[in-house]
């Protein structure tokens, strides 16, 4: 493999990896606080992309505004899901909430097929994001650089919020001990709703970027990115924000480089991701940044 090609593949990997990372953060935040794997996360991603689609087509909003509206709407959907499907099960065994999450995921997908039809739809891409420019023999889209940049900024903002604000402090407290936190006068349900809101906003943001990068949306588009991001979250240490981002980048790198170095095995690309998940679960179940706890998933 030539150096040029390697660099091209490297950028392909960074873009894919940072998208995985961004989606993984949503999983990790909710898991960190509630020990709940929010399977509906990938579907929120899909909704975010659809909200932009309808914002720009049906409601004729300018693209920028449609993005903001879509992120807010997705965020509200996340809070609503928590209110309807998870909050009533807060005291129930954890498995109940997990099953509820799977149900929510199926529900959103089926509802979307009915509402939006199963047909894939084209996505509007602003010209300036997708006009390729050339450095030597490497072709880059502004989008290729923008996706990791935005992801990086969002992670920084999130880390600041979790470690330097009151709600962030409350989130960390809840993740340690929900009952004690409640006794200390923290409005636990509000903080959890906030967590879902932020997680869903991030899912929508990544869904929108995903749709820009892979400009075709359909009601099932969130499933695979969701799986991959979940692997990324486990790899990085579920519950850790930096870990999720790093896990995403490693996974993106692995997937792309597996194809780059072993083209004949390209059909097993997805298998690589799942093998990584298995290896992590076997040898370091807490992931790269994960804290050791006695509780099991």
């Amino acid at each position, binding site marked *: 493999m030539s150096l040029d090609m390697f660099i091209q593949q490297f950028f*392909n*990997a960074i873009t894919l990896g940072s998208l995985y990372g961004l989606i993984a953060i949503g999983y990790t935040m909710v898991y960190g606080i509630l020990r709940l794997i929010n399977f509906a996360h990938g579907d929120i991603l899909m909704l975010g992309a659809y909200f932009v689609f309808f914002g720009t087509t049906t409601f004729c909003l300018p693209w920028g505004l449609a993005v903001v509206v879509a992120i807010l709407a997705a965020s509200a959907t996340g809070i609503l899901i928590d209110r309807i499907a998870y909050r009533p099960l807060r005291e129930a065994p954890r498995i109940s909430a997990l099953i509820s999450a799977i149900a929510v995921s199926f529900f959103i997908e089926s509802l979307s097929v009915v509402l939006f039809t199963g047909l894939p*739809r*084209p996505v509007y891409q602003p010209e300036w994001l997708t006009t390729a420019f050339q450095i030597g023999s490497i072709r880059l889209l502004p989008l290729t650089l923008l996706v990791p940049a935005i992801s990086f900024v969002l992670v920084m903002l999130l880390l600041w919020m979790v470690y330097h604000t009151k709600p962030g402090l409350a989130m960390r407290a809840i993740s340690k001990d929900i009952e004690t936190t409640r006794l200390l006068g923290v409005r636990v349900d509000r903080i959890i709703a906030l967590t879902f809101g932020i997680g869903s906003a991030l899912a929508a943001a990544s869904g929108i970027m995903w749709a820009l*990068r892979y400009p*075709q949306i359909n009601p099932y*588009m969130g499933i695979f990115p969701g799986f991959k991001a979940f692997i990324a979250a486990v790899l990085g240490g579920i519950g850790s924000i930096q870990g999720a981002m790093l896990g995403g980048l490693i996974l993106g790198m692995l*997937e792309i480089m*597996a194809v780059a170095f072993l083209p004949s095995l390209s*059909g097993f690309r997805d298998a690589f991701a799942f093998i990584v998940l298995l290896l992590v679960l076997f040898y370091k179940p807490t992931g790269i940044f994960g804290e050791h706890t006695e509780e099991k998933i």
Partner: protein
Amino acid sequence: MKCKTLLGLVAASFLALGLALPAQAEDPIKIGVYLPLTGQNAFGGKLELDGVRLAHKLKPTVLGRDVELVVVDNKSDKVEAANAVKRLTERDNVLAIIGTYGSSLAMAGGDVAERAKTPMIGTSCTNPLVTQGKAYSFRVCFIDPYQGAAAASYAFNERGYKKAGLLIDVANDYAVGLSAFFKRSFKKLGGEIVAELKYNSGDQDFTAQLTELISKKPDVVFMPAYFAEGAIIMKQARELGATFVIMGGDAMDNPKTLEIAGKAADGFLQTTFPYDLSMPKMSPEAEAFTKAWKEFSPNEAPNVNAALGYNAYNLIIDAITRAGKADTHAVTEALAATKNLPTALGVLSINATHDAEMPVGVIEYRDGKRTYVGEVTVK
């Protein structure tokens, strides 16, 4: 459309209630239709249903009896497809069945029809296995080996491409089959396969595979994908600066291809059934179909799926007429004996393996438009 389907289902269930009564000579002849009207193949299924409906509208009677269509949605799902055929054969007691789009659905349904000894006419199910070893399965389309060979022949002989790459969806029987036959024929003609890259249905990132393909500098990349993936593959290929020609099969024959890929579709070559609005010269049957379609469904352009549905109905009516009686055995024999039937997709004969024989059409995409550039026949 959804309301219509629902009404159809309600109507069909009422009909099913009436089934307990003994059949009388004046009863309409029932023809079952099972197609994906929801789910991922809904687009093709809906167009094929409209084609069937149009043909039914033009020829509503056979042997002096009314023909009644019993439509069931197979939801793009194998289990549902089998259930749909079971329903049509057991509850609705249909004489013959039209359907379906998608080979895996047709195989699921075909097994049930075979057991019920009811003839079934596939619309756009191109995998050889659909009719293999089945006495009651037929189809109005050509099969994958034929299309793959035609694509290779066109690329090599007509375009002079010597080096080909492959990009294959390994989770899709259609893509695996088509690319295997393309590969074999292309090599036999003297061409070279320089790269063979794979992906899985539902993947959305193809940058790694495409970067690898670009480095091998093929003249043409054969990519027998479904349109949703095919369109974003084309987009990513052009973004990465790929200059090779991309070639696909009939599963790309969908207006969405152009809608999603936009400018990236420029230069795309696609093999398909020999019908397109841009055909320089249409047969009288194709012209009649086009004209009737424009009155029937003025908001939608007729495409090959519509023509296949239309043909499937006409083929059955032709067979019933020749059989002279509404008897499944006689109709099955008449279907197998179909020779030189003029249709919207050229002159159609059913061969020994129950597949339709017809030329393969080639379409080129240029400046946001499709142009029918020729036909290939492979021996």
